[in-house]
């Protein structure tokens, strides 16, 4: 399993209700059920992946987070997980607010656009960066709102949500992000993982 998923599983308490937004093939949901005895639900936009989830016995609805989070009442989940898709939404602000309305807490992961490879790519080549975690060309990428770890921290102040825990993933190593190391983490982390609250 991806290190990212392991970190998320560790962040989630046992026997809670979790909504995985963009649950993909259900890998994370499966381990949440198995390791944390979680009541897990998923939303996934791809029909094929919904069908894969069903074959694993997971409760998943086909849908789009921007349209379909509306149907869930306030605080209906203990956690809402959004893995590496915030940058693909038309309006990330609305999505974060929806996540924090539906869930008491949210876990958001973002591919870090501040990573040195990304910066170097643009600086040296002068073309839009293509890396392992950002494999698409500018014209076919679903990512329309890329941000850096620093941007996300700034965003928390702008739209007013609390970051409870921020973790950086660098070469499968996990470390804490704080004010003093933000500059370095923003340069070296491939992924930022944030546990947030209203």
């Amino acid at each position: 399993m991806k290190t990212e998923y392991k970190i998320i599983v560790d962040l989630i308490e046992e026997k809670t209700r979790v909504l995985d937004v963009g649950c993909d093939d259900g890998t994370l949901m499966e381990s949440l059920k198995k390791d944390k005895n979680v009541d897990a639900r998923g939303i996934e936009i791809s029909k094929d992946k919904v069908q894969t989830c069903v074959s694993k016995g997971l409760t998943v609805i086909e849908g789009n987070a921007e349209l379909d989070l509306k149907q869930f009442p306030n605080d209906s989940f203990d956690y809402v997980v959004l893995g590496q898709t915030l940058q693909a939404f038309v309006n990330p602000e609305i999505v974060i607010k929806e996540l924090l309305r539906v869930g008491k807490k949210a876990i958001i992961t973002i591919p870090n656009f501040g990573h040195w490879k990304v910066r170097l790519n643009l600086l040296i080549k002068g073309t839009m960066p293509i890396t392992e975690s950002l494999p698409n060309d500018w014209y076919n990428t679903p990512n329309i709102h890329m941000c850096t770890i620093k941007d996300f921290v700034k965003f928390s102040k702008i739209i007013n949500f609390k970051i409870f825990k921020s973790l950086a993933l660098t070469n499968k190593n996990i470390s804490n992000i704080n004010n003093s190391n933000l500059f370095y983490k923003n340069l070296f982390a491939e992924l930022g993982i944030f546990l947030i609250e209203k």
Partner: protein
Amino acid sequence: MNIKENIKTLVIKKPLKLDCGKTINNFPLAYETYGSLNKNKDNAILVFHALTGDQFVTGINPVTKKDGWWSYAVGPNKSIDTNKYFVICANVIGGCMGSFGPSHKNPDTNKIYGTDFPVITINDMVNAQVNLLDHFEIKKLFSVVGGSMGGMQVLQFISNYPDKANTVVPIACTSNHSAQNIAFNELGRQAIASDHNWSDGKYLSNNTLPDKGLSVARMAAHITYLSKKGLQEKFGRKLQERDALKFGFDADFQIESYLRYQGSVFVDRFDANSYLYITRAMDYFDLVKQFDGNLSNAFKKTKAKFFIISFTSDWLYPTQENKDIVIALNAIGADVGFVEIKSDKGHDSFLLDVPDFLKTLKNFLDKSYSER
């Protein structure tokens, strides 16, 4: 109508108060079963049929001698695996395959009911069928499954009997008919009523059949079961056994011939009055109204696991109407999964060989059964 000898019938002695206010008792409910009930009696699936279906879900229908209406989905190793599950299906009341319906004789007058038969509802159908659980001594069904009007019965069933099923699978259905749905049904009913032979529903006593009217009703309805794309790909403007237009009103186009055929075979197996009664039941069905405008309340008492399936090309009960049920369930934190299956086969997709659908249905049932 053929003599229906091979039909299993349960006589329901318990009085059933219908929504129309009348009470019926000692009435027949025709049913069929497939597979076998296990020792714990926890492997039973109650399948509900659609408007023109019957209890003969799979195998050869002993009355029509044709394949059962859900042969693709039900049988050994199929989506609803009869090696594993005990499948029960009953002919709805108001129907014409042995259950209490308008072609039966009224014991008080010794005359065929015709339109004197009480107007029945989806709620009445479900309340009649729940008696089968007592008959088989089943406390809780593993699942209730049905498409189209069968899906309406699924929704009504779990709403009426929240503890009587572990899983709930409404397919290609709606919680109430749109004006367009009612309009198409009314077209069918008027086609029947305007057939001279219908004689205000007394045709069986007159030894005639309103087969022209019933056949037109079927033709119109059949169009609503298919998609524009599906029809275009299958028929387009192809001509029927001719090289050129004949400049007349014979069936020049293949689609005309196809619809006429569908109409003509339908009248051999279906009763016109039953068609009136069942379409009326569908039009009257409104689970939203039953719960004062809040569909969520229909499901508040159940802990069952729901799985809802719609089809991309179904314009009779479009995805959004299926999704409204999902939304109502999510609003109360119910356990609900949902998928829209890609298919060009229209509303009829659930009856046809649509591998993604059949696979998904099987996966849901088998996985839920092993985790129960």
